[in-house]
């Protein structure tokens, strides 16, 4: 008690001191935040505004940094660019094929994983391996396995030959073949994450529900549809939504298989188009890139909102 009093007296006027301390603390807090604020400001907030500006600046010249007006021209240009339309088509095909297929496949694999005890961890570890590998590197391996050259038909064609089909050039051949490789590789790449999430979702369903259902003579199919699915449905929706977003942004997997010149391979994606407009052989048009990126953002945003609405509706039911 007496010590406290002493220090108070020494500290002088306690009231203004407290105020000062509070200010000092607030100042310190901002100091801690400063690095994050600076980086986010320069590399996230400012670009966000800037990209909108770019998309409406007509005839922007990146060398002289001048433009001759504002308007919807950039959007119009992008929407009439056959490369962009091809990219949109490719992206949509990839999304529509890989999202449902990879989710289903992941569900199947997770169910299998969850029903075994022996070797479960080994399988889990193996299945997760693609997540930690460099997409570009493994993509090259896929390319080589699928590619048909004058010297060899490649591994996949060798297998196809057993079934008396082929040979097909998956890398430089018909569109559907290229798309097949693309979707196959995409699924190979995205599956680890989905399997991981679904396996832990399945494992978190209390065993006792299955025991109860089993005693009541519930068939395995009914257990799945009436117990498992409703209980893991939030996770499935999460995966579908993130899957949609991820698939719409497909790009590096395409580069991995078909190389950097995606337009000539006819396998470009929307994101690829954005980057091509920005930089590279056809680059130097940040305005077109901005318009394309905003169109992509609008598409992804709409689909996410629709997904969320559906998930809300089903979960209420």
């Amino acid at each position: 008690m007496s010590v406290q009093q002493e220090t108070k007296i020494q500290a002088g006027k306690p009231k203004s001191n407290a105020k000062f301390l509070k200010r000092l603390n607030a100042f310190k807090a901002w100091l801690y935040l400063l690095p994050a604020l600076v980086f986010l400001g320069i590399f996230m907030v400012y670009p966000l505004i800037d990209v909108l500006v770019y998309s409406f600046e007509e005839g922007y010249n990146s060398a002289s940094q001048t433009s001759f007006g504002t308007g919807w021209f950039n959007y119009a240009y992008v929407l009439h660019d056959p490369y962009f339309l091809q990219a949109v088509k490719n992206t949509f095909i990839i999304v529509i094929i890989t999202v449902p297929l990879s989710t289903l496949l992941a569900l199947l694999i997770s169910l299998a994983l969850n029903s075994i005890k022996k070797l479960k961890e080994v399988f889990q570890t193996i299945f997760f391996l693609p997540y930690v590998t460099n997409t570009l590197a493994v993509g090259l391996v896929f390319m080589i396995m699928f590619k048909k050259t004058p010297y060899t038909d490649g591994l996949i064609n060798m297998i196809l030959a057993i079934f008396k089909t082929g040979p097909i050039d998956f890398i430089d051949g018909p569109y559907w073949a290229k798309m097949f490789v693309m979707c196959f590789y995409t699924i190979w790449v995205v599956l680890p994450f989905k399997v991981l999430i679904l396996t832990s979702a399945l494992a978190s369903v209390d065993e006792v529900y299955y025991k109860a259902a089993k005693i009541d003579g519930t068939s395995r199919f009914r257990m799945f549809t009436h117990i498992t699915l409703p209980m893991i449905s939030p996770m499935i929706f999460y995966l579908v939504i993130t899957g949609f977003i991820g698939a719409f942004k497909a790009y590096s997997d395409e580069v991995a298989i078909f190389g950097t010149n995606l337009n000539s391979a006819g396998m470009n994606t929307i994101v690829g188009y954005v980057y091509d407009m920005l930089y590279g052989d056809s680059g130097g048009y940040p305005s077109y890139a901005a318009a394309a990126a905003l169109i992509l953002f609008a598409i992804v945003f709409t689909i996410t909102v629709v997904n969320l609405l559906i998930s809300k509706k089903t979960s209420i039911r």
Partner: protein
Amino acid sequence: MSDYDQISKKARTARIVRKTVTYSLLVLWGIIVLFPFYWMILSSIKSYGSYNAEFTPKFITTEPTMQNYIDAFTKVNLGRYFLNTIVFTVVTTALMMLVIVFAAFAFSRLQFRGKNLVFTLFLSLMMIPSELVIITNFVTITNWGLRNTFTGLILPSVTSVFYIYLLKENFEQIPDDLYKAAKVDGTSDMKYLFKVMVPICSPTIVTVVILKVIECWNAYVWPRLITDDPKYFLVSNGISEIRENGFGRENIPAMMAAVVVISIPLIVLFLIFHKKIMAGVSRGGTKG
């Protein structure tokens, strides 16, 4: 009675069938996952001559050679790409950890006006796809004359709103009393942060570090935009470069050797920390 016997027997066969189907499915997918890895290692130890002589690819090789690995390091600048990536990964991760630990600390423990507003703004930034901001960042870095520099490579990726959020949530679970006790003992904020909070939250910190390392090691888009001088290529760009211009005519075994070399660090990391990595990714990872 025989009814019961029959039902019992049926159930047993059904179980065996189910087990078989389950394991077959798992093994099949396991092969699909592992085969590309096998194929890349196999191709990397075939000599250039023997690889190109195989019209029908062989599943084993009788004369393994390390020549491709030597080529990978001598004929193209793989060593350089490798080193660049290590520098990039280490510096980016370290800087980001500092930035996000400070920010998370400010949000979780310090009191200041406008905290909630700033945090809400932070969270809303999570929805912004990187594709949208990369355009301006490209222009910014170019204008600053930072193309083909490590600074230009690193700067835009040293913050992550999501990781700040993850860490802040974790920091907040540490009881307030600990902070008060430290204050009573005269511990400075900085000391408290690094001696108490960071050690307690080390599992989350490790998770974030691992995720960031994976992200950095596989970074492709930004490095591609910002570097065109092979001296600053990271492994992903290096692979792209090797594919298009390296090794002369289609030296696939050497390419595969390069691929093996750049895949190994993460795979080794994964095999050592697979439990941690998988737990971390299921908490905070998104891909696909």
